[in-house]
């Protein structure tokens, strides 16, 4: 199994970097255009959350993204060592946001759940958060 790990500063411009890397990784699996966009969007949401909520935009910190694939099942782990999530159930609720002043829509987890096969959140307040995104690609 080919696994890659990208560690990036928690900086807004790296959100697009994470999308480019995940797109390059899954390209050999020949995903549909729709699957590719779904995965890129979910990764974008998870990395954005880590930067804004995990670290409060402190770009000295880092976000790690690990990607692996078993046949046509792609697994992406996005980890920060930031503040953690106090209440995961609330965070998963559509339109829930702790940062309305930043025009955050509160849809990050809703989008991830809509676009991926499975989404898992492991978080410990004060220690950080890992979001696991799993996508089963259709047969080609």
């Amino acid at each position: 199994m080919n696994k890659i790990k990208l560690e990036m500063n928690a900086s807004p411009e790296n959100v697009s970097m994470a999308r480019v890397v995940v797109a390059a990784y899954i390209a050999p699996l020949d995903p549909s255009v729709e699957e590719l966009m779904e995965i890129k969007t979910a990764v974008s949401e998870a990395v954005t959350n880590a930067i804004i909520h995990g670290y409060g935009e402190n770009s000295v910190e880092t976000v790690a993204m690990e990607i692996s694939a078993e046949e046509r099942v792609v697994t992406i782990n996005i980890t920060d060592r930031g503040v953690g999530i106090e209440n995961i159930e609330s965070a998963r609720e559509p339109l829930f946001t702790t940062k309305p002043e930043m025009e955050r829509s509160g849809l990050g987890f809703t989008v991830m759940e809509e676009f991926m096969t499975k989404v898992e959140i492991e978080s410990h307040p004060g220690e950080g958060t890992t979001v696991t995104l799993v996508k089963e690609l259709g047969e080609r």
Partner: protein
Amino acid sequence: MKLQSETKISVSGRVLTAAPSGELDYHQAERIRTQIDSAFEKSSCRHILINMSNVSFMDSSGIGMIIGRYKKAETRGGRLVVSNMSDVTSRLFEISGLSKIVTRVDSAKTAMDMLGGTT
């Protein structure tokens, strides 16, 4: 691939048209928001049209940006219309519930006809 967004802004009658290009994510949404708001404040426009034809990617940061501009137009009794959305972007619209309050149309021309400006 274009990573840096540019936004073309034009005014016709009471309609401010903003056509962002590139990727509408967290990094770019802030810049686009500032550009639109600054032009809107200086103008006497009531309505805002966001033309998405040159947007290659959008996530929920873009939804947040659109909701914010909807509120701006509302303060002047105007409407916000979005044109030329891709299929994936349309799904984000459905998930967010934005489709209930924001009008989506196929082309900028249709939007302008609706809002009473000219393309």
